[in-house]
């Protein structure tokens, strides 16, 4: 009996292979499993079997029924698949007709490249516990100069060409101007806080300078300040190296040399090794191998005093970074004027997707 069942299984497999159509399959199924089907016929002989034989034949027969059922559903799905595919072919779409191939259909968008870099830097400093501040663009002489240790007759006032307002009513020393650096935010930041604190201040600044490919009258800086009890030049270098490593995604060679800025003492110029020529000397770095990137230093005691901080107890460091310059270096932008042009041919190159 077992042999009979095995041969039935082989027979079914053989027969179902060549069937063409749902009806044929269903007929075959009833030929085998129907009440008078081949399997039932064989199982009729079961009553003559010994209990031992039954234990073998019973499960065998059930398995055969299951196998036949599975084969039938598989075969039926095969036919259905063909039918559906025919319909799909009738309604097929062309996946090559993507919007990116179209004129005026490519709806992308994006933030300003300066915003991208600014965010990156903000996030680096946020992760190191710095707040992010800004202040007004229209300032007075006190916040832009005096409070930063740049008195009225200081030659350093010439270093920064200032836009002045028509302001006959304000007293001398309080005349209004467009801030020439983000350092004004240092003063405001200090006055609103008690040490220890640390913050950065990205913002727009203004210089009364003829514009050309590398000079703008409206550009962006990022100021940083940290005040505490034992801040050292070593700490300053640490933060600057960390920042640059994060920005340029690699260890950047930096050098710190003396630089004069009235609001810091000692003051430094931080140079980075030219990224274009890796320090070999090229036109970008004027053959020196180094690019001047950010002025920094230990906050001058007079500046701490104007911020209401006791310079005997606290000290700190400050730095300034040309954001626009950094953006230009990162993306190889040849003309600073593109940044404020509003020309979407420029902005679309920085689309987010």
């Amino acid at each position, binding site marked *: 009996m077992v042999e009979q069942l095995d041969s039935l299984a082989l027979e079914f497999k053989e027969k179902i292979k060549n069937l063409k159509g749902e009806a044929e399959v269903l007929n075959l199924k009833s030929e085998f499993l129907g009440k008078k089907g081949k399997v039932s016929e064989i199982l009729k002989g079961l009553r003559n079997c010994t209990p031992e034989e039954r234990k073998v034949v019973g499960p065998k027969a059930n398995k055969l029924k299951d196998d036949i059922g599975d084969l039938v559903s598989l075969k039926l799905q095969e036919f259905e698949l063909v039918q559906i595919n025919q319909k799909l072919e009738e309604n097929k779409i062309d996946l090559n007709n993507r919007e990116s191939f179209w004129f*005026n259909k490519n709806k*992308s*968008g*994006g*933030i*300003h490249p300066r*915003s991208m870099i600014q965010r990156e830097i*903000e996030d680096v400093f*946020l992760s190191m*516990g*710095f*707040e*992010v*501040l800004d202040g007004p*663009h*229209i300032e007075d002489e006190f916040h832009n100069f005096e409070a930063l240790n740049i008195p009225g*007759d200081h*030659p*350093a006032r010439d*270093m920064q060409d200032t*836009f*002045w*307002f*028509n302001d006959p009513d*304000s007293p001398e020393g309080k005349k*209004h101007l*467009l801030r020439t650096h983000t350092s004004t935010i240092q003063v405001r930041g200090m006055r609103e806080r008690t040490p220890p604190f640390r913050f950065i201040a990205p913002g*727009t600044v203004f210089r*009364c300078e*003829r514009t050309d490919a590398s000079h703008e009258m*409206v550009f962006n800086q990022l100021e940083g300040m*940290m005040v*505490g009890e034992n*801040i*050292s*030049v*070593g*700490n300053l*270098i*640490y*933060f600057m*190296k960390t920042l640059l490593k994060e920005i340029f995604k690699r260890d950047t060679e930096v*050098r*710190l*040399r*003396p630089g*004069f800025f009235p609001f810091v*003492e000692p*003051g430094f110029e931080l140079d980075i090794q030219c990224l274009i020529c890796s320090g070999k000397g090229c036109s970008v770095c004027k053959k020196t191998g180094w690019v001047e990137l950010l002025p920094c230093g*230990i906050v001058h*005691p007079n500046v701490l005093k104007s911020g209401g901080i006791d310079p005997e107890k606290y*000290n700190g460091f400050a730095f300034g970074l040309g954001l626009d310059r950094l953006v230009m270096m990162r993306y190889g932008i040849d003309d600073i004027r593109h*940044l*404020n042009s*509003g020309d*979407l*041919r420029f*902005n679309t190159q920085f689309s*987010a*997707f």
Partner: protein
Amino acid sequence: MLISLDWIREFSPIDMELPPDELALKLTMGTAEVEGVETINMFWKEVKTVEVTHIEPHPEADKLNLVSFKLNDNESFRVVCGASNVRLGMKTIFAPIGTTLPIGFTLEPKKIRGILSEGMLCSEEELGLADKSPGIMDLPETTPVGVDLLTLWDKKEDIIFDIDNKSLTHRPDLWGHFGMAREFSALYEAPLNSPFSEEWTKNLEGLFNNEKSPMGVNVEADSSCLAYFGLSLDNVLVTDSPQWIKDRLLAVGLRPINNIVDISNYVMLELGMPLHIFDREEIEGDSVNIKCLDKNLSFTTLDEIDRDLVAGDTVICDANKPLVLAGIMGGLNSGVTEKTTKLFIEVANWKAAEVRKTSTRLGLRTDSLMRYEKTLDSQLCYRTLLRTLELIKQLCPGASVVGKVEYDGQNLEDIKPLVINTSVFEITKTLGKEISTHKIIDILERLDFKVTKGDESLEVTVPSYRSTKDIECQADIVEEVGRVIGYDNITPVGPLLDVTPVRLNPLHIIKRKAQDFLSQHSHAFEVTSYPMVGKSLLNKCQWPNNLESLKLVNSLSVEQDRMRDSLIPSFLEVTALNAKTYDDFRFFELGRTYHHNEKNFSDEKVVLGVAFYSRKSDPTLDLLNHIERLGNFLNIPMDITDSHPKFKNNLVEESWVGVHPFEFKNLRIMGKMDGVVFGIHPLILKNFKIKGNLAIGLIDLTQFEKRSIKDKLSYSPLSKFPSSRFDYTVCLDENQSVADIFNVLNKLKIKAEVRHKIVDIYTPGKTDCFVTMGTFLSDPEKTLEGDFIKECEEKIIFALEKASIYLKKG
């Protein structure tokens, strides 16, 4: 400023063989930025003396000769020469092929009319020695042959550093070679040899005599003069300077004039203190008076330009007229000429701020002014005067002092040296580097500071020429030590800090979220435009405010001479620019606007502006939808309302002609009209030659600087009971809008949770408009009964009909 290493070496033995780049780097890293370094006089090694041995005419040219000569026993050359003064036996100068002449021209192998010239015989012009010369150089008969000119003329090779003046803003002491030599000596730990000893002073004072000085000095107290030294000399012979002085001046970019003028320049470049030498016979009277002008007058400076002086400018006058504009430039009338024999030497010091003010007003910056404006030390005047006397005696041995030094001004002995108390602990703590006491004292002493060591402390006496402005406090002493040690030798180390959480402020968070939403969801690009605008732009907009109250006095152009009070004019400009390139675009800006205010002068707003432009379709509704979604995304509570008769919009003047008559919505934020979405009127677009449609949305974000936004999201349990929906279609006439339907529906009181939404709008003709509405009813506690639903339907339809909104028939 140019600095000569050869000159430095007169005071400190810096190794000439060190690579120039290394010297420049050392100076950059320790003192001041070197912008360029150049080796000079190498050229003179390449050109040599020769004697002409043979001349024959060029076979192909009338005016050219073939000239042969011997350089030495083994080498002879033949060149093509066009000079008419060439002759047999002439001693002249030969530049071989490959030489780069001082005029910037490199000799290359070249045939001239078919014959190869092996170099060139040089004229003074070609050697850069004269502006013009008639022929090749004709050297004396006695000149040896085959000698290079460096040797023949006793020139020196030199290294010239070009130092960035900006990096010397605070260092008046570095505006002369002696001061620079002190820096080199500190950086290289080399000795500094000062010739200006007490003995030197005594020797020169020995030249003074008891005659009455022919020229007295009188300083008026309100002038800008701090100190004024004068000395008279007779029997001076004005001639050319000796070559060594000329060479030094030329090396640092100054043109030699005559021995006396050259000496005054030489001393200034050496000691950093300017001086002025008068032809004494041009001074009327027997004294010079230093005073403030009491009235405006015109004064011709020695560059032959008339300058308008004003009352208060300090001048040096004789009995009748001004002679010198103090600290800036001499007059045309009193300078030294070839005929001068009697001199009056002035070495003076001036108040930096005052001479700077005059110079800025006149737009006249001179070598002298650049030094005075840095605040010089009056105590250096006397040494400068003696050095000048020393050089005059050296160059004109016949010159004689008449009388002695005359002085007026502050009492120099009253100037007390600045003493700063510091300690090794403070210095090393601030630098973050261990440095030995011995090393610190050594550095300071090399820089001419006197150091007295206490138990813990250091008492540092600052040289007078450093304390005029630069050195004031301990931090300045830290810098002196730090820069000589080299900041690169300090190890970076993270500070020990308290851990405190930080967050961006609410405004900053909103800005970032708005950037993300508008770029990624609205497909807009962020731009930044100029915060300054001009009259012509405002006119083009027919802008209601002229913005005169926030006008700049020194704007670079009339197109950008005042601060904007709105982003709208800038947006119109940006749109006009881009409409030339694109058919559809969207952009946004997070910008500032500026508003004049009597009390604080000005207020600033942080405004988010969004613009949608489309050539073919009207983008206003689209923009409004995006702004509404943005408001939800930012969690800004925002009501969209129509123009209100009383509460006007804060961001755009509603009566402005640029506001579209039918496309305007207020965004009411926290009860204030701090936002707007509207279409721009085609008339204004036409002014900008913009074809198409532009919609602008503005939101004032200023208030979020201080106020954080609450998270509005909330959860309610999912209903266990099914909700019911019924749809109905109403017909609107041309005077009705969907807002009328909602006005009715929202007033109804129904005892269940209810939402009304538009399902479809169908507009078959011009006038009729069919709106299919869906009303969704649910109760969290129970399944709604059929009767209740029926009741609601009737209530709704009744209410609508009362408002003349009828169900569609059929």
